[in-house]
């Protein structure tokens, strides 16, 4: 448990990735699901940004939106995703393919099924090398072996000719990470990369990611619903609920003084308030609602212990809640604390009206 990261890890300068008011909806037969609804956050070089939230809160769809891997019936409808000064949403498919795996790599939740069972591990790593670095033949093989060694797979020159089913779960996840690193990405998106692994292996993989990050000055976006893992790895945390980011803060500050009632609930739901590994976020009463309309209220209200009348009629916007830092925001009508309740409500009403789709 390492909650002693420096609060101020953010580096100066431009963020490497800037997600601005993105909305991704799924047009199903029954309804339009706003899986991601007006999400904004930044990721800086060398930084690990954690995204937490219960199942169904839109974490994976956020990641997919950044990769532009949202499939039918899903559509990214609004917002910008700025990478390297350019909006990824304007990229042509071919340009996007060069970015995927090349500049932004992604590791998925299930290592057991992330590798194609009918090709060798080496083949799949070399595929990345060929696609983004034009390597082939001996050169690619050598590089692939080095990558496997870098992620701590022993006997790599033999392993490279083996098939995924000959690898253990932890080794497969390492191989997937090696594949993601093959092209020296600047940003690595990890969608619950350790959920399927047992605790020891999980710790090893987290350590591996930290080492790699240090070595390569990699930015990591880390999705999980495990608060223990977040405490371990994240510099900054975004808490998602029903398609929205409800609180965003440096990791230490979030754990020490969570402001949003949802975050408080999440942290309280971990036994012994200890951020034990494997602590899951399932003990708040009720379920995440499916966001299927424009929010004119607080989506957490039905489950919120502090809800009051206006929570059903005013949509909370992110406001500064930090005690001293300026990097702690929460979307809750209880804030800003230094204003009276009425004044606070006015802030939310006014900014909510201005917000919307035109960013």
């Amino acid at each position: 448990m390492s909650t002693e990261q420096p609060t101020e890890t953010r580096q100066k300068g431009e963020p490497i990735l800037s997600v601005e008011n993105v909305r991704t909806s799924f047009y199903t037969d029954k309804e339009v699901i706003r899986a991601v609804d007006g999400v904004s956050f930044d990721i800086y070089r060398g930084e690990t940004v954690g995204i937490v939230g219960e199942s169904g809160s839109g974490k994976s769809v956020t990641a997919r939106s950044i990769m532009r891997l949202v499939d039918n019936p899903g559509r990214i409808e609004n917002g910008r995703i700025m990478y390297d000064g350019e909006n990824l949403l304007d990229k042509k498919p071919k340009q996007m393919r060069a970015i995927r795996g090349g500049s932004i790599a992604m590791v998925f939740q299930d290592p057991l099924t992330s590798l194609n069972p009918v090709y060798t591990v080496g083949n799949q790593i070399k595929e990345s090398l060929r696609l983004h670095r034009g390597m082939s033949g001996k050169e690619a093989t050598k590089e692939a072996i080095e990558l496997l060694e870098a992620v701590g797979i022993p006997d790599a020159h033999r392993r490279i000719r083996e098939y995924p089913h000959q690898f253990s779960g932890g080794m497969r996840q390492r191989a997937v990470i090696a594949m993601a690193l093959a092209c020296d990405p600047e940003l690595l998106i990890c969608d619950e990369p350790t959920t399927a692994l047992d605790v020891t292996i999980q710790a090893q993989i987290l350590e591996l990611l930290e080492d790699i990050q240090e070595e390569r000055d990699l930015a990591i976006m880390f999705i999980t619903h495990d608060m223990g893992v977040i405490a371990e790895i994240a510099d900054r945390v975004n808490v998602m609920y029903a398609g929205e980011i409800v609180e965003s803060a440096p990791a230490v500050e979030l754990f020490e003084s969570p402001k949003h009632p949802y975050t408080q609930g999440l942290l309280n739901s971990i036994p012994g308030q200890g951020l034990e590994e494997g602590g899951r976020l399932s003990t708040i009463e009720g379920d995440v609602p499916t966001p299927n309309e424009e929010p004119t209220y607080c989506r957490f209200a039905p489950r919120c212990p502090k809800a009051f009348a206006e929570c059903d009629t005013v949509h909370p916007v992110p406001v500064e809640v930090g005690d001293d830092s300026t990097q702690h925001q929460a979307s809750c009508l209880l804030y800003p604390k230094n204003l009276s309740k009425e004044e606070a409500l006015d802030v939310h009403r006014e900014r909510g009206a201005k917000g919307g789709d035109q960013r």
Partner: protein
Amino acid sequence: MSRWQYFLRRVLMSIPVVIFGTTITFALIRLGPLDPVSAILGTQYNPQAAEQIRTNLGLNQPLWSQYFDFMYRLFTFQLGQSWVIAPGTTAYELIQVYAPRTIWLGFWSVLIALFVGIPLGFYAGLNPNTLSDYVASFGGIVWRAMPNFWLAIMLVTALSQTGQWTNGFFTWQTWIVKTNVVTPPALGFFQDPIQGFLADPGGWFNSFLKATKQIAPAALVLGSASMGNEMRIGRTAVLETINSNYVETARAKGVSGRSLVWKHIFRNALIPLVPIITGEAFLLLGGSVFVETVFAINGLGWLFFNAAINGDLPLIGTLMYIFILILVGTNILQDFLYTVIDPRVGYEG
């Protein structure tokens, strides 16, 4: 255990299967209700002749010695001769005449199923819930549901009438090459294909075309059930593969659409199709008896059917043995395909 060791083991395991199947055949023939002697003699039954035949056939020997004799002969490919439907002709000669037609029929029906069913299924799977998917899926279901005999008879009727219907504009019988609708295909050109082709390429090609056209309607009927199956399974397999994590991972690393389909999707989607494809051999053996009758293709199925209704026991035994070999061979082919396509084969754990 490596995949190929596993494959070898599967091949070895087919030996007991052949022995078992042949033993069952023996039991059915010798212990079944049919008496070969009366079948051979038919109406001219007399005890003396019967005794004579019994001795000739070795039916006076103890059963176990008959059994070993039977097994030994089959395994050394001494296939005996026909006693009833073509007395005195060796089974080998009969098979030489009848088998090629069945093989020709089987070849085309498998090919039709493969080259129509799988591409259609894959196409539908790659474009799910589009109009073409619905058309293909719906067509596949209707096609599969059509009973073989109905389809066969409709096709024979329709093809015979094409001349009248189109006022002579299109007549199946004279289209490209002159053929009858129901006929055994003329396969003489296969006797010595290379020589034949070199000597007279035009003529050889013409015979080839003719034989293909002759078999086409029957092959279509026989292949249609498998075609529908392959389409359906192919579609599901592609859909499943598309939504799998490894395809997602491949997309996330920037693999292009075409490579995604050919490299990552198709090979995996083929795996569930393997047993469907080889399972066709079983369908074929069953279906061929009937289809060969309707289309007057005097093949193995027809031969077997006649041997059976006439009680030609030695020939039945031999044909059964051949069928068993075909089935076992198909199973081996199936294992071979699995071994080639799927590296997980033979992996325990």
